[in-house]
């Protein structure tokens, strides 16, 4: 198979994920609207918003880092896609997962976050900084159960390679990690709530309180880039948990179904619970998720 | 209540005391005794709650009237202390030391009526308006309509209806005017 074909497939895969992410956010809002008894936005609204944002004529910049912030963010999202196999068992859709294992993905998440934080920081808006400090603190707290769970999985499968973790889960639902290692699965899924950033863990953007948080100063194309990276990141984070716990995906429909369900798991939790304060959020992760993570390691290693 | 009014009437040589209700009285006191009286009521008669402070422009008499309204939570009675200032000399002793919220009332009165309270903290800061250059806007010699006309580009062709007439004309053009009498009966 030629390298160009593979590159083309990767690009196509990215477009699929991007569009699926936008559609997913539209569906999310549509569902919320229907719950409220509204008609809601048209399903194509995110694309129009994206177009509109790109079509904005004014571009302002606070400085080079401000300009580069969304680009860092987008690269981060792109990399999340690139370093994870999109579909299992397919050479065509394996992306660049040969370049690194799950450690690379875990740390590359931070690439976009950091760049965005710096860009927003140069914007000079106090709300941006407040949002970022909360985000970083919460991220550190999430790290604890998440790492414990992932290490438990790595011990279970004796590999850090995402491809091999998926491979080990093939052959029916009973082989999925969530069933073979439910404690680690629970720890990871609770951490996933924080990673997805919906209520009650949405204190980074915290509408009504520190309006929009870090991207307060971002507009026009910047905002478009941020929106699309957000869309990709939502899908790919769901995909990460899918690959770790739910046996990965072998076809695009399966991919779409599974990421949809995982994404909406966090959405529904968010619909029920109000927002935490930062110290509540951090302490929350230090309680049950941490205990579950430790238990997972104890169970798997002794 | 009556006893209190009696006592302060003798003590401060009050000209006029009106009982609005059983538990509410208004007294008029000379300007120079006003803060003394407020302090006396606060310290000796437990009028510990400062309800509000207001100002009225009696332009015809050439006077500003200041009203300090106090409340006694133990007896559940209110007393209003009125005092008059000369419009030509709008300066009043500040009472900011008694209750902190008086700072704000005095700041407001300074802006709206131009009555100065020397020594009151922040009394010169803007209260509602920013950058007001005219005479204080709540003084009755300030013509707000003229000011608006002069300043805010009034749109040509604006006219005002009497709401009652206009609505009757628009909504019930066939109804005879007598209907009004019926309602009166």
């Amino acid at each position, binding site marked *: 198979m030629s390298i160009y074909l593979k590159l083309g497939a990767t690009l196509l895969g990215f477009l699929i994920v991007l569009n699926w992410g936008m559609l997913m956010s539209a569906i999310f809002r549509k569902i919320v609207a229907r719950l409220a008894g509204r008609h809601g936005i048209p399903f194509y609204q995110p694309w129009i918003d994206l177009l509109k944002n790109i079509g904005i004529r004014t571009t302002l*910049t606070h400085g080079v880092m401000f300009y580069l912030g969304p680009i860092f963010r987008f690269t981060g999202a792109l990399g999340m896609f690139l*370093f994870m196999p999109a579909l299992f068992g397919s050479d065509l859709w394996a992306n660049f997962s040969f*370049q690194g294992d799950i450690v690379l993905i875990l740390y590359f998440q931070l690439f976009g976050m*950091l760049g965005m934080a710096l860009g927003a920081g140069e914007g*000079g808006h106090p709300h941006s900084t407040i949002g970022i400090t909360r985000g970083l603190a919460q991220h550190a707290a999430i*790290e604890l159960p998440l*790492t414990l769970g992932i290490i438990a999985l790595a011990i279970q499968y004796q590999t*850090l*390679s995402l491809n091999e973790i998926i491979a080990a889960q093939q052959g029916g639902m009973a082989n999925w990690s969530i069933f073979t290692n439910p404690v680690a699965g629970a720890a990871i899924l609770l951490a996933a709530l924080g990673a997805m950033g919906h209520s009650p863990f949405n204190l980074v953007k915290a509408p009504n309180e520190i309006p929009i948080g870090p991207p307060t100063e971002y507009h026009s194309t910047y905002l478009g880039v941020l929106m699309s990276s957000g869309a990709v990141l939502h899908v790919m984070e769901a995909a990460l948990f899918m690959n770790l716990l739910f046996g990965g995906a072998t076809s695009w429909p399966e991919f779409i179904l599974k990421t949809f369900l995982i994404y909406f798991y966090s959405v529904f939790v968010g619909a029920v619970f109000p927002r935490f304060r930062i*110290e509540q959020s951090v302490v929350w992760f230090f309680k049950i998720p941490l205990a579950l993570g430790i238990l997972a390691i104890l169970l798997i290693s002794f | 209540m009556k006893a209190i009014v009696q006592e302060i009437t003798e003590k401060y040589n009050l000209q006029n005391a009106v009982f609005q209700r059983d538990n509410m009285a208004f007294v008029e006191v000379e300007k120079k005794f006003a803060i003394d009286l407020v302090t006396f009521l606060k310290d000796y008669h437990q009028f510990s709650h400062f309800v509000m402070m207001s100002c009225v422009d009696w332009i015809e008499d050439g006077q500003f009237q200041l009203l300090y309204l106090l409340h006694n939570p133990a007896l559940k009675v209110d007393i209003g202390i009125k005092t008059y200032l000369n419009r030509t000399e709008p300066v009043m002793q500040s009472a900011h030391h008694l209750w902190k919220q008086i700072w704000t009332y005095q700041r407001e009165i300074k802006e709206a009526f131009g009555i100065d309270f020397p020594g009151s903290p922040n009394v010169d800061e803007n209260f509602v308006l920013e950058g007001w250059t005219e005479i204080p806007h709540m003084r009755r010699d300030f013509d707000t309509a003229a000011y608006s006309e002069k300043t805010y580009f009034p749109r040509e062709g604006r006219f005002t209806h009497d709401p009652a007439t206009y609505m009757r004309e628009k909504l019930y053009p066939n109804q005879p005017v007598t209907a009004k009498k019926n309602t009166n009966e």
Partner: protein
Amino acid sequence: MVDPIYIIAAALGVGFAIGILGNIGRNFAGGLTLATIAFMSFVSAQWFAGFYFGNVSSSYIFTAGFQPPLSINLLMGAEEAFLTFIVNLLGLLGGIYLFVNFKRKGRNAFVIYLVLLMGFNVVIMTRDIFNLFVFLEITSIATAGLILIEKGNRAVGAGFKYLLATSIISSMLLIGIIFAYFYTGTLNIDMIIESNLRYMVGGPIIIFLILISAILELKPFPANGWGLDVYEGAHQGFSAIVSAGTATASLYMLYKLLPIASPEWSYYIALLGAVTFIGANLLGVKQRFARRVLAYSSVGQLGLLMLILGLRGFLGPNVNYVFFGILITNILAKTGFFWLVGIVKANEIKEWAIIRRKPFLLFLMGVFIFALVGFPPFPSFFSKWTFVMDLANHGLFGWISVIIIGSFLEAVYLMRWFGYAVKSEDDYKFDFKIQIHKITPIIILTALLFVIGYFTAQFTETGAMINFIPLLFVAVLYFADALPIWVKNTIAILGMGIYFYFTYPQLDNLRLIFEVIFIIGGILTLIAGYNYKGKRQGFYPVALLMFAGLAAIIEAQTTLEFFYGWELMTAGSYFLIIRGKKSMPHALSYMLFSLGGAYALLMAFSIANIGVVFPSLDILNNIANYPVWAYGLLLAGFLTKTASVGLHIWLPGAHGEAESDVSPMVSAILLKAGVFGVLLTLIGMGQSTYDLGTLAYILGWVGAITVFVGNLGAVFQEDAKRLLAYSSIGQLGYIVFAFAIMTHLGWLTGFTYTINHFMYKAVLFLTIGAVVLRVGTHNMYEMGGLIKRMPLAFIAVLIGIIALSGVPPLSGFTGKWLFYNAVIEKGWYFQGVLVFFSGGLAFLYLYRLIQTVFLGQLKDNLRNVKEISFWFLIPIYVLIIGLMVFAAMPQLVLQPLGTLIANYFPNNQLVWEGSYAYTAIGHWTGTGVMISIMVMFLGTLLLVKLSTRKAHKLKQFDIVFSGERPHRPETTHVAHNMYAGFYKAVWPFTLPAVETFWNWISDFIHETAGFVRRIYSGNGQAYMLHIVLFIIIMFFITIGGTI
């Protein structure tokens, strides 16, 4: 050879002559005295030289032409020659120093002085016990005379107490002598020894009387209140003579008399020495006055010497080396110090800041203090080393602990004093002058210290291997201190470059890594020094001293060389750290922790040294005796340098308050010395035949907790440099943890972190240091928005923090990836997770560093600051290039490292296929990831650039502010207490438990000292009572049971 009898004859003759001649001029009398002392010195020097070159042998001098016991005989042996030479030389120098003072007092002073010296000489030389008594009395009376010659109540009181005490002691001695004569029929010491006095009935009591008086002369703790007052009451010049001369003579007296007694007396004397050594130094901690401090130090050193005397049986042939090494250091340094006190004339040690007005005096003071504490290249360093090694060979670890505890306590107050001198506020009105006749003797003493130090090193086989050339280079730089900064900097850089060029081919790969970090890193940080203007006095010698120490550690072949390098490095870095503006307390705590660590190392080396003929560094491999203790102590010693948890409290202050280019030196470079040590230890542990897994396991936890403590501490700092300092603690924790894993991958991780931390911490510290130089504050919340003013600095910090945080594609990720693999392979999950969690905390402080300093709102007063200095940018960007190369092509470094580590851990290696790395469980490619990310980033940038119109540039307040406008940058910049919310969640972990613990220890020592000090009431009667009680108690201890 001039007969030694002429020493006495000349002294007596001239003394009488001055008395008889009456009204001769005082100058003439003084000159005559000095000439006489010079003659005396010459005679003993001649003998000493004779013994040194081996062309004379010991000879007895018989007075009055008879053989003993009929006459008094003197012995001139090697020891006597040496001691009389020293005493006479000091006497000569003291005479010069005191010349003016004596002249004012009259010619009698000269006579008494001369008689005193003669007394010392005879006490040393005589072999007749009654003669000994007589001349002891003569010295006592002369001493009292010289004390009383001073004016003032203190002098009178001191002299009176001294007379009282010595008369009690003399009467004891006299009674003992009478009985001894009665029993043995002789007064000759040699004959008394032969007569086996101790087996006779009542013999033990006689021996007790004689020895107890000899011991009391040495001012044992606590019956020494009378002696302490002498040091304080007498003229400083004379206190020095008392401290040196009397002490020498009395010690030698005890030495001579000891053979009379039974061997268990050695034990008692050692015990008394130990009590005195620790007791006096403990009390020294509480002292505030300069002379009092020196007095306690003198008594403490006497105790140490008694200890050596008592333990001489275990030292074998080294006894003289040890004894005289410590004695000579003490005599020279203490005398010089007393004389320095005489010049500086500051009573309280806090007032010694005035010494900075004359930097040369400060240098002298430094030499004396470091000599007293036992740093190389002074003789006591080598002697203490030999002493400890010999004791360990006999398993006497209790005694080693005594020596270490006492030395440590002594270091506490001496270093504190030095700290005051270097750093405390100098706002005192009084001034002092340097007089040439006072300073010359001190300079001679200082020179002697160095020279003797060199010769002491040459005495032993291992010591002779030590390379003194770097030290010489330091000395050259010291004397070139008047040159402008760029000359000195160039010399220093060239020197280090040449050194590197000549040494690196001889090193194995392991050492080469550290050599590169130490020397190349040193050169890079020195480049930043071009930024400074003026002379920057004192910087280059100490910086080079540190680098010389580091180089010596790398090159060390023996444990002694290693320890020598270690101590040099400690001294140099101490001086570097204390240069900072507010560094005084931090430098002290650095010094104390370093010394504690060094003593732990000493102990460990001594354990490793047991039964070893040649102490090469290889003896650390597979230590056979007490391996857990030895390796545990080694690790504890090295962990003080890596600032691991529990031993880390010195670091934030020391690194945070240091100068801008010193911080990277001490953080990025110096800490790696600890890492090198830990690595050596672990290599040794790896080859051990014992199972030391538990030790490694504990070390792993220590490392993991250190990461957590360091990173969490960094999150809540307001001071940029302290933040980086706490971060260093954390990063060193990573390194320690990784090495403790003790697998191939673990060590690879450790090395990766070591190299990385060197580069990014140097970048960060250099940049932040340079920024601090520009903005004039350490507080991050006082900065902000500096990206507009210093873009290059911003880029440097950006790359530094990306690398530190471990975000791909920079080199930090290399470490993180290896870490995951190593941790999972080893099975240290919980430690590993704690470390990863702390990695998340790193984001918090790194973001804070870059946000509050470079992003956000530019402060008003910083609107015009310039880009950081060019001279800082050079090393920063060189290091950044290094970082980028390491990030893009990790295989270049990691592959050779893998082969190196395979020597120790051949299993489970990292497999390289081109640029792809594989472990048993994971895979990753540095180059590929770097290219992918670059392509993605540039592609996105291009897309965005094409789809936007030209961007309008905004200024700092052009932000949406809820319809309002900001009024001040200070109130718009979110910086102070940035993680308040997070603090509410984690505050229990930030409580300073370790600081509380060490404070408690320090309070405990102080309070104990304060309590014990109450026995020194200053009352003469009480002091006499002490002496009597001491005698009674000693009686019961020594022979009470046998009668």
